[in-house]
Each structure stands twice: as C-alpha cells, then as structure tokens.
C-alpha cells in the first residue's frame, strides 16, 4: 500500500464519492466534507487505509460521500464503532464525523469515555446547535431561550453544554474549534488533528440554514482565536471557560498523553490454553 501512495498523487477529488449529498443548499457541512477530503490529500493517505465512521444526523451522512471505507451506524454510537475498529485495526486512520445531538446527547457517555480512553481517533463534530434531520429541535448546545422548536416552544429552558470544556476535563488529547466559513482552516486543523496521537476533538461551527437561519451571521461573528497552542491543561481550561464560543481557527489544547492501543502479546496456539482446564 505504501507503493500505492508513491505511485499516485492523491488530490481532494480522489476522496469524494459520486453520491449526491442530501444536505440543504448553503449547509455548512459541504465545507466540512471538502475540508476532510483536502486534509486526506494533504496527508496523502491511501483511501483504502482510511475509515470514516458516523452515527445518525445530517452530518453523519458524510461516510457515503467519501471514497474511503465508511461506516454509518446507529444514532449516538459512532465513537464506540470507531474505537473497536481502531483497536482491532491500528494500521487504519479512523475519523469520526457527526453532529451535536448525536455526539453530546444520545452519545454523551461515549464522548466522555472516548476522551478518557484516548484511542487515536479524530472526532469532527459539526455543531449547529439543532437537530436538523428531525426538523429543528433543541440540542445540548442550543441556548436555553431558543424558541424556534415546536417541541420546546418556550425554549429548552436548560443551560447549553460546553463540549470543549467537557472534552478537556475528560482527557481529550487535542482540542480545536473552527468555522465552516473557512474551509481551508478546517482542512488545516483536521490535518493536524489526524497527525496528533490520541483522541482529537475538532468542533466545527457549521450553520443550519434551514432551522437556524440566524446562524448565517456566524461568519461575521467568528474571530481567529488570539491564542497560542498550549499543552497546559489549566491554561486551556481558563481559555475555554472564558470564551464566547466564537474564537475559532486555532488548536486550543494539545496534550502529550500516549494513545490507548492494547498490544496483543503472544502468538500462542489456542490449544495451549487447554492447560487451564486439564487435570
């Protein structure tokens, strides 16, 4: 497969499938898809050695839109599928894509433990603060007073969840935020995230033009975070807890914990284990 890499010079196009996305015109996820394919081209990874895993939601449709190996599972369980795949097949590059509902609500427990377990995965969350596929309900990152949903017409009434603070507290090894309005930057951040060992968390602000049209303003609200990358978790925590969610474009934390990758020790025959039972 190395020979393959040398023979071919992959471009972003090589990582795109011919399946047409179901997304609405103007959806931020188009940019993220483009950024993922650019990152893979930058890294010159052979498509057959990459897997993209997802759960359910608009952004979870990405695997079928790529030409790498894909896995589109059930709602909220992308991280465990990716964890099992990477542990069983450490030779693969494994990306996980999804949205804020999939990752932080139904999949919340897996998010905590994926950060903690620190398997070498890159988790790209397209955060639009809404459930788009079910046509506009409040997600864990929705502001409590958003009254745009028929399900919670008076607003969700509960504080939103800060995914990056949680990621840091739970042990993620790489934390970044970017905006789909700058796909080149998203591609650069994803490239760095793939290169960094352990669990990399990339939050991408990706507007839902249909159910949160006001998010079209995000492109004017975001600013490049005026910070340097840090490996100091306390500094990163202060940084994350004081920002307003619109500081983008930078890696906000880079840790040095070794990735979790159990190494099978032996090559014994199964018959050798019969000694456990033999009298």
């Amino acid at each position, binding site marked *: 497969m190395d020979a393959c890499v040398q023979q071919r010079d992959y471009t972003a196009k090589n990582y795109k499938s011919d399946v047409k996305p179901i997304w609405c015109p103007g959806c931020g996820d188009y940019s993220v898809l483009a950024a993922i394919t650019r990152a893979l081209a930058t890294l010159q990874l052979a498509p057959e050695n990459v897997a993209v895993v997802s759960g359910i939601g608009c952004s979870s449709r990405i*695997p079928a839109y790529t030409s790498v190996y894909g896995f589109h599972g*059930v709602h909220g369980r992308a991280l465990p599928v990716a964890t*099992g795949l990477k542990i069983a097949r450490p030779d*693969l590059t494994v990306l996980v894509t999804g949205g804020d509902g999939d990752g932080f609500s139904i999949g919340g*427990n897996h998010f905590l433990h994926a950060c903690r377990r620190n398997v070498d995965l890159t988790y790209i969350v397209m955060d639009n603060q809404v459930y788009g596929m079910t046509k506009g309900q409040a997600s864990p990152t929705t502001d409590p007073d958003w009254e745009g949903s028929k399900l919670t017409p008076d607003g969700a009434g509960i504080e939103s969840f800060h995914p990056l603070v949680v990621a840091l507290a739970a042990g993620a090894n790489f934390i970044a935020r970017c905006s789909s309005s700058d796909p080149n930057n998203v591609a650069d951040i994803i490239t760095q995230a793939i290169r960094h060992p352990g669990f990399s968390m990339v939050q991408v602000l990706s507007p839902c033009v249909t159910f949160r049209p006001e998010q079209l303003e995000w492109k004017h609200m975001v600013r490049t975070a005026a910070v340097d990358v840090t490996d100091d978790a306390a500094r990163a925590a202060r940084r994350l807890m004081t920002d307003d969610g619109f500081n983008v474009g930078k890696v906000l934390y880079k840790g040095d914990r070794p990735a979790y990758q159990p190494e099978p020790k032996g090559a014994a025959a199964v018959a050798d*284990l019969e000694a456990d039972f*033999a009298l």
Partner: protein
Amino acid sequence: MGGQTVSLVMAGSGGAGVVTAGSLLLEAAARAGWYAYMTRSSGPQIRGGEAAVMIRLGTEPIASHDDRFHLLVGVDWQNVGRFAAEIPLGPESLIIGDPGEGATPEVFTRSGAQQIALPMKALAKTVPDGRPNMVAFGAIAGMIGLGEDVVLGVLRDTLKRKGEEAIAASIAAFRAGVAAAKDFPAVPRLPAGTPATRERWSITGNEATGMGALRGGVRFVAAYPITPATEVLEWLAPALPKVGGVLVQAEDELASINQIIGGSYGGVPSLTATSGPGLALMTESLGLAVAAEVPIVVIDVMRVGPSTGIATKSEQADLNIAVYGLHGDAPHLVLAPTSVADCLFTTQWAVHLAESLQTAAIVLTDQAMGQARAVMPRSAAVSFIGQREKPAALAEGVQYKRYANTASGVSPMAIPGMAGYTYTADGLEHNETGTPSSQASDHQAQLDKRLRKLTGYHYGEHWADITGDQDADTAILTWGSSAGPAREALERLRAAGHAVKLIAVRLISPVQPEKFAQALQGVERVLVVEQSHSGQFHRYLRAQYDLPRQVKALHHPGPLAVRPGAIVEHITQWS
C-alpha cells in the same frame, strides 16, 4: 447418565469456606477418576453472604443434578434456609449440623431427613489453625469413599503457596472429620474411579464459552461487566492477548456491542458477553449488525428477569427477546448450548455461522450452566473456524458491490485496507453498492437476501441433539440447561421400559421445519420442558412448527431447576 452417583450440599455463611471446600472436593474427586458437576448458590451480598455448593459425583459424566440430595452439611445455618427450595431432601437424606451453631432450620427438617450432629467448630479447634470447613470436607470424603491419599495430594498442591503450616492444619482438620464420621449412617459410596482413558477437564460453562470463542477465531472482545456473564470475560481477558487478540472493557453495553461491530467491520471476528439487562440495551445495534451485515456474536448468560430480577440465579426466559427483540424484519441466529461442555461447541459454531453468514448470532446460556463446574472428558477440537467470504478480483472499471444480491444471499465482504473495494457499511436501507436507498425495490431485495442467506444454509445435524428411541411415540422437547435433567429422565424412562425420544434444540433460529418434522415422525405425544414462567419455548414451538395433537408443557420460572423426576412423572402419568 448411567453409573453410580452421590449428591451432596455444603452450606454456610460467608467466610465459612464452603465454596473452597467444595472446589477441593471436586478436584479430589476428579483425581480419583470420578466425574463431577457442581453448582453454587449465593445470597445477594457482595461479601459475607450465605453460600451453598451443590455437588454430584459419579462414575460416568454427569448432565444434571439429581431429584434429591443424599447429604446436606451445614457448617452453620445462618440464612441458609433461604436456599431450601433449591436443596430438595427426602426421608432417606442425611443432614449434618454443628450442635454449637443452633438447630437445623425447619425448612430442612420437615423433609424427614435423618439429622446427625457433628461439632465441626469444636473439632476444628482441637487443631492449631484448624477450620470447620475442612472438618466437613473430611466427614464427606470418608462417607462417600474418597481415598485419603488423593485428598492429601490436592491439599498439598492447592495450599502450597500458603506454607507447610497451613497444609498441616488442613490435613489434621480433614482427618478429624473423617474419624468423626466413621460410624455415621451410610450414603452411597462410589466405587474406585476408573483411570481416565481420555484426558479430563475441570471447566465451568463460562470458561467453556470463552474457549469456544477462541477456537472459533474470535480475537476482539469488548464488554461491560454483568452477573453472571463476567467470568466469560475474566477468562478471556488474559487468554486473548496470548493468542494475539484484545479485550476492552467498555463504558456500557451500548458501547460494547458497537465496539465489536467496529472490530468485526475491520475484519477481526468479534464477540461480547452479557446477561438479560445488557442484551436489552444491545438490541438496537443487533439490528445494525443484521442490516449492515457485520458478523458478531453476543453471549447472553441468562439470569432471572425481568429488570434486575435475581441477578445471581438462573432462568430460561430471554428466548423471546433473543428471537423477537429486534425491530423491523431482522433475521439473525439464535443458538443455545445443551450442557456445560456444549458451551464450547455451540459458541464455536456460533462464531463460524456468524462469520459465514455475515450476521448477528445470539448464544443463550444461563447462570446454572455458566457458573456450573464440570469434570468431564476433554472437548475435542472441531473444525468450525470463522470463515468470511472475501471478494474475488474485480474486472477493470467494475464497481465493488458490497451488498450484491447473490444466489446464496451472502455477499463477499471486503475489509478496510483492500484497495479498490472501499464501501460504506450502512444501517440505512441501501442498494447493492451500499448507497442509501429508500426505494421499495431495494428494500425488498435486501430483505430477501438477508433472509435467504439464513434459510438456505445447510446447518447439518447440529441443529439439535436427538437421543433415545428412534421409533418412540413419545418425545421430550427441550433446550438449554433443561436438556441436562431431560437426558437423565430419558435414561430412567428407558431403563424402566418406556420408549422415549429426546430432542434438545441447539439452533433456535432460524427454524428447521423439515428436520423438525423428520425428528417427530411417528411421535404422537410431546412433553415440552423449560424453565420459564410463561412457557416461552412452548409458545415458540407452537408458532413455528407442527406439533402432534397431544402436547404437554412442563415449565416453571427460575431459580428452581427442572428436576429429572418431574419429567419422568409427567411422562409416566401422562393422562
């Protein structure tokens, strides 16, 4: 089951050491050339609860407990009365109790069993560091004819790490027990064991399940601890790395099943083990494995349900959820071992079938079977190894169709790393290439093929264990751990001149109508035997198969085991 047997129980509060003494007795019996079957019952406490070991020893392999126990030894009686229903005694039984520990509970004495006093605590005190459980062990060994040499060998080997003093104390306490019981009334004494002509194993059902997984080729396991399945995982955890595999403790059962789906998608045969509550959590993702055609095996060591139920005790009541628990039309495999030894074969076969058919397989064992320890002949290696069909070379310009609508229904499966075969596995309905599709024709075609691959497969003779009289007009139909007492009942019935056939079904789903009809040829009446309150197996058979006109059902919930005598009675008093 033939041969001679003796059945006994050692009971006491936590710390009395009855489980230790029971394990030593089992080991000694095995060395003496006998076969053995031991189950445990314990209270809900994490430590210090009451415990009982139920042991049956014999000159031939043992499939089940007897109807009654010959001997109950209570090292003390604290709360042991709670287990009375699980320890049937009769007027011919003996109860040995320590007079210093109070009166034998009325729940035991009302059986009419003869009571004998043995001051185990006082005798233990005559020996430096002596323990009452060793006195009990000595009394039992003397009564059943277990030679002292064998026992001393076991004590020396087992207690080696604890030092010479501990060994000497145990031997002295053991001898005190033997001497004190010298003139006790007789219980069956077993003749000297026959030297093993084949290698023998001492193994639990849960260990056998783990071994079956490895023999079948499983090299990735993800799981969440749950009683009574944890021992499957605890045996596999150190074993897997030795053969190049990995076990991961997941954050919950949703994670464990999805991790194994990920591992298997990566090409590594994968398995998880759980019990009823965990299986309930896994059902959505079982459907994913079916739809995305990713081979996985889920072991369900059943316990008393619903909800938390009785976590430490056995019941055969997860059949419905295993067969019908998935939403949508989701054909998959459900298998059930018919004995402790068969946990190995059935698990290995399940891995083989899941890999061959690219689907989910659920294996239903239970607490009684999983936590039972048997001394049995070594389980011979069979050739079922997971075999997944990989795609052949593609012609230039031809797109790989992951979900190709083949004649057999099995579509060759690429694994990541294979260049030119990239595809997306999907729980969304899809067309042959794997692209999501909401078209009726794609749904129909994929449903058809996912069913066809299961129904068209030749499962061979392993679908059921059929024993007894070929031409019998009476059949016993059973499954899982109820097959043990049914086997013993069959032997008793045949010894008494009744012609009976036993069908213990191993492949629960998909159904095998032709083989079933053939097995029931000439049968006019059927007794269905199972351990569930609602008769789940009986209802399943009724729904899926043609049964003869005369059908009786013997079923009750756990934790009480089905006894061979009850089966015999149902057959002999049919009308």
